């Protein structure tokens, strides 16, 4: 069976969907050669991300082994991760002082 989602780096706390995935599905992931199961708490469109673990608010969101942004809410394992719950830390002219 083809992979339904991919984790780019063992440090990542999110996975990327390789198909349109449904809420309640158990997704098998391969991380460092080990298999791991995550139950989805929402529908995840093709190419979008879901969380592998609980992520506290104001915590780094990690993909490719690098920080891709900061959580703006509590994110549970299996939650949809996108612009509604992560923010960019860069080019933020809207924030006082701009860069963090």
């Amino acid at each position: 069976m083809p992979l339904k989602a991919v984790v780019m780096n063992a440090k990542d706390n999110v996975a990327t969907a390789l198909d349109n995935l449904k809420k309640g599905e158990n997704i098998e992931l391969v991380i460092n050669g080990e298999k791991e199961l995550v139950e989805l708490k929402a529908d995840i469109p093709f190419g979008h991300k879901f969380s592998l673990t609980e992520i506290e608010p104001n915590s780094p969101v990690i993909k490719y082994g690098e920080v891709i942004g900061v959580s703006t809410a509590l994110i549970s394992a299996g939650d949809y991760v996108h612009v509604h719950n992560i923010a960019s830390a860069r080019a933020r002219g809207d924030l006082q002082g701009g860069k963090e």
Partner: protein
Amino acid sequence: MSFSGYPRPKGYVGTRNYIGIISTVSCANDVSCWIAEKVKDAAVFLHSHGCCQTQPDLDTVNLTLTSLGWNPNLAAVLLVSLGCESSSVDLIAEGIAKSGKPVEKVVLQKMGGKTNVVNEGTRIVRAMAETAAKLKREEFPDSELRLGVKCGASDTTSGLLSNPATGVACDTLINNGGSCVFGETTEIIGAEHILEHRGATPEVGRKILEIVARMENRAIAMGVDMRGGQPSKGNIAGGLSTIEEKSLGAIVKAGTKPIKAVIEYGEKPEGKGLFLVDTPGREPEFLTALAAAGAQVMVFSTGLGAPQGFPFIPVIKITGNPNTYKNLPEHLDIFVELGEQGVTQAGKALYREILEVASGKKTKAEAIGYGRFPNIFTIGPVL
């Protein structure tokens, strides 16, 4: 490996044999088009600049048009000027003449208007095309190629598949002694710490941090969150959440080799290897920077399906999004299968395609003539 191209003065090699018609100011665009319509093998470069701008921007226009004239895909160049513009047709002509190729100019206000300029321009371009048609393709090593790489209309498949495959092709060309150019400084924000360490010297690394900070500060000066502009609405719909995520996927398209130098917009770097040009990522401005930097072939990696090419450079489209590949057959040249094997295989297939396209095979964008509206990147106001 080798390809068959057109020999140019000073040892350069073209993959196409066009006569370039270059407008020196937006006001000369119409006559440039009218001349180009009358001659087969003419390629016209239009833009919206060249007047009522501050000197730094006018310098960028002069430099960019000069560098475009040097591009090896042009056998000869006609500059089309209005006459009263602030860009300098004479300076550009002098600069292009140093390439050793024929260059001439027509000036509307000095030649009695549209009809005379179109007649005279057409006569010049036809004569240039007759001479150029006598040139035959010859076999050259792939080390004579300079590849421009770009990603656009990205989604998450870009960072997972089509950008890594493009990176494989980049590495192959540099291993074989050729050159690659990449840029899109905005799409380095959040990934500059990785590229810094790829600088061939500490100075190059520092310069990378400097251009990223400069670009980020321009966005910050607007007083808003950049998100929505970068990543774009389409990028976000495609699953990219932040500029950091987009950047980390974007830098992969330039492979893994050391970055030899950082160049300014419109500049043409000397020598071989991997070069980074400081420019935003938007297509019309960025593809021009690659052409100015001397790229004779480009690879454009896309997720959602970016259709545009460039007036005188073949642009190969590659995607890892199966839906896009299926839905947009007129626009996409290469598909990357899922999986690590897929990336390596696609990288190899892409490299073969680069050599075939360099040797004359038409890309999808060339076949339908998509790419007539490039532009030049300027910083200051229109005055």
